[in-house]
C-alpha cells in the first residue's frame, strides 16, 4: 500500500493551488478599482450658468487625455461666453436688451442671438404660450433670478397680475427689433439645452464623438463609452422618500435628456412649495407635477418642451408632447405617480418600488 501523497509531491500542488487562489483573488479584486473615476474618461467640472456643469469625454486612440483636456478647456471658455451673452441680468447682449426694454426703448436683437430667439418663438407658438421667454419680469418678481433673492413668501397678487397682463398684451418675439413695456426676457428654460447643442457641435468639430455635456442636469450625449452605451440616471424628484435615482436610460447615439423639476429652485410658504417653473398664463408656479423628463435629438427643443409639458400639467402634458413632436417623455405627478410614454418606457430601467403607468 502506497501513501496517497508524499511531501515531495504535496509542495508543488500547494504552490499551484496558492497561485491559483492568488490569481482568482486578483481577478475578483481588480474590478472595483481604488482609482477615483475611470482612466478611460475625462471629467471636467465647473460651477457656471448658476449650476454645476460637467463635461465627460471618453478617451481612445483618437482622443488622448491631453487633447480631451485642451478641448474641454476651450469648451468651458465657450460656455462662459454663452453664459455672459444669455444672462438676463448681466452685462452681455441679453442683459442690454432687458435694460433697453426696462427703459421703454426699442431693443435691437443682435445677429448671433436671432436663431435662439426664433427657436423660442416657435416653441411659444406650438405650446400655445405655456413656454414663454417673456416671463423675465415675473421670474424676477418671484426672486428666482438669483439664488440669493429667494423670497420667504409669494409676491403680492396685484403685482403678479400686472406683469402677467403685460406678457399677455406684448408682441411676440418675431422681429429683430423688440419693444414691450413691463416685459423682460429670460431664456433660462431653453438656454441650457441650446448650450448643450452648441457644446456637442464643438466637440464634433474637434472630432470627439463620444461625450456627455451636462449643464445642471440638462444633458446631451453623443456616441458611446468604449464598448457600451452611456448610462444616464434620472433623478427622483423627492429623493428623501426613498431612492435618489428614479430610472436609468441607456442612450442611443446622439440625443438630449432634459428634466424640469420643482426641486431645483423653490421656497416653501405655509406648507406649499413655490418653485421656479412659472405658468405664463397665471404668473405663478405651475401646479400638478413634480418633474418632467424629455428625450429628444436636440437639446434646445427638449429643454423648451420639458418646461411646456410641466406647465401643461397632469391633464394636458400628453397633448402638449404630441403638439411639440415629443414622443419620449416621463412625468411624476404631485402624488409621486410616474407616467411614461410607450416610446420611452422600454428604454428605462426603474428603481425598485417604482411602478410606472405606460401611456400611448
Amino acid at each position, binding site marked *: 500500500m502506497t501513501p*496517497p*501523497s508524499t511531501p515531495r509531491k*504535496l509542495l508543488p*500542488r500547494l504552490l499551484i*493551488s496558492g497561485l*491559483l*487562489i492568488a490569481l*482568482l*483573488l486578483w*481577478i*475578483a*479584486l481588480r*474590478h*472595483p*478599482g*481604488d482609482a*477615483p*473615476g*475611470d482612466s478611460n474618461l475625462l*471629467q471636467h*467640472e*465647473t*460651477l457656471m450658468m*448658476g*449650476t*454645476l456643469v*460637467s463635461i*465627460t469625454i471618453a478617451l481612445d486612440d483618437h482622443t488622448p487625455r491631453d487633447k480631451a483636456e485642451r478641448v474641454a478647456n476651450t469648451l468651458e471658455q465657450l460656455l462662459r461666453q454663452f453664459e455672459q451673452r444669455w444672462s438676463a441680468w448681466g452685462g452681455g447682449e441679453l442683459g442690454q436688451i432687458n435694460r433697453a426694454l426696462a427703459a421703454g426703448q426699442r431693443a435691437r436683437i443682435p445677429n448671433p442671438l436671432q436663431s435662439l430667439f426664433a427657436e423660442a418663438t416657435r416653441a411659444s407658438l406650438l405650446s400655445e404660450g405655456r413656454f414663454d421667454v417673456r416671463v423675465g419680469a415675473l421670474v424676477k418678481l418671484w426672486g428666482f433670478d438669483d*439664488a*440669493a433673492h*429667494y423670497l420667504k413668501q409669494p409676491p403680492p397678487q396685484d403685482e403678479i397680475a400686472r406683469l402677467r397682463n403685460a406678457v399677455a398684451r406684448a408682441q411676440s418675439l418675431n422681429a429683430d427689433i423688440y419693444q414691450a413695456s413691463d416685459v423682460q426676457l429670460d431664456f433660462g428654460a431653453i438656454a441650457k439645452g441650446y448650450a448643450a447643442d452648441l457644446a456637442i457641435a464643438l466637440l464634433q468639430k474637434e472630432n470627439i464623438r463620444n461625450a*456627455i455635456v*451636462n449643464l*445642471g*442636469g*440638462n*444633458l446631451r*450625449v453623443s456616441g458611446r*463609452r468604449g464598448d457600451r452605451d*452611456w*448610462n*444616464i*440616471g*434620472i*433623478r427622483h424628484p423627492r*429623493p*428623501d422618500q426613498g431612492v*435618489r*435615482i428614479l430610472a*436609468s436610460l441607456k442612450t442611443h447615439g446622439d440625443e438630449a*435628456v*432634459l*428634466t424640469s*423639476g420643482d*426641486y*431645483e*429652485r*423653490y*421656497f416653501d410658504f405655509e406648507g406649499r412649495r413655490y418653485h421656479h417653473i412659472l405658468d405664463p398664463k397665471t404668473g405663478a408656479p405651475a401646479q400638478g407635477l413634480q418633474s418632467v*423628463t424629455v428625450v429628444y435629438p436636440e437639446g434646445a427643443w427638449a429643454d423648451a418642451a420639458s418646461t411646456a409639458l410641466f406647465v401643461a400639467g397632469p391633464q394636458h402634458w400628453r397633448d402638449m408632447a404630441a403638439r411639440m413632436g415629443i414622443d419620449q417623455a416621463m412625468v411624476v405627478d404631485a402624488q409621486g405617480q410616474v407616467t411614461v410614454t410607450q416610446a420611452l418606457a422600454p428604454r428605462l430601467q426603474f428603481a425598485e418600488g417604482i411602478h410606472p403607468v405606460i401611456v400611448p
Partner: protein
Amino acid sequence: MTRADVVVIALAIALVAALYVHFWQPPQSATTVEVRSGNTLVGRYPLSENRGLDIQGREGISHLDIRNGRVRFTDSPCHNKVCVNSGWLSHAGDSTACLPNGVSISLLGSGETYDAVSF
C-alpha cells in the same frame, strides 16, 4: 486528485463567489466623493470611511457627512437648502452643489454606474 485538492479547489471557488458577491453586487455604488469649492478641488474622500467634512466656501462653511457608502450636505450657509434637500448621494456619476456657497460634490466609481444624471 486527492481529497486535499478537492478541498482546495472548492475553497477557491467559494472564496471567489463570496468576493464576487461582496464586490460586484452593489453595481451602482460609488467609491469616492470629489469635493470642490469655487472650482478648485478640495479633495477626494473614500465613501467607505464614515466622517464629517467642513468645507470653506464663499459664504461660509458647508458641512458634509459621509456615512455607509453615501454622502450628503447636512448644512450650508444658503437660503433655500437645495443642497441639503438633495439627500443622500450614493451613485457614481451623481452630483449636487450648494451654488450660493460655491461648494460642489461629485461621486466617482467604476463599473456599471451612471455616466451622468439628469435632474
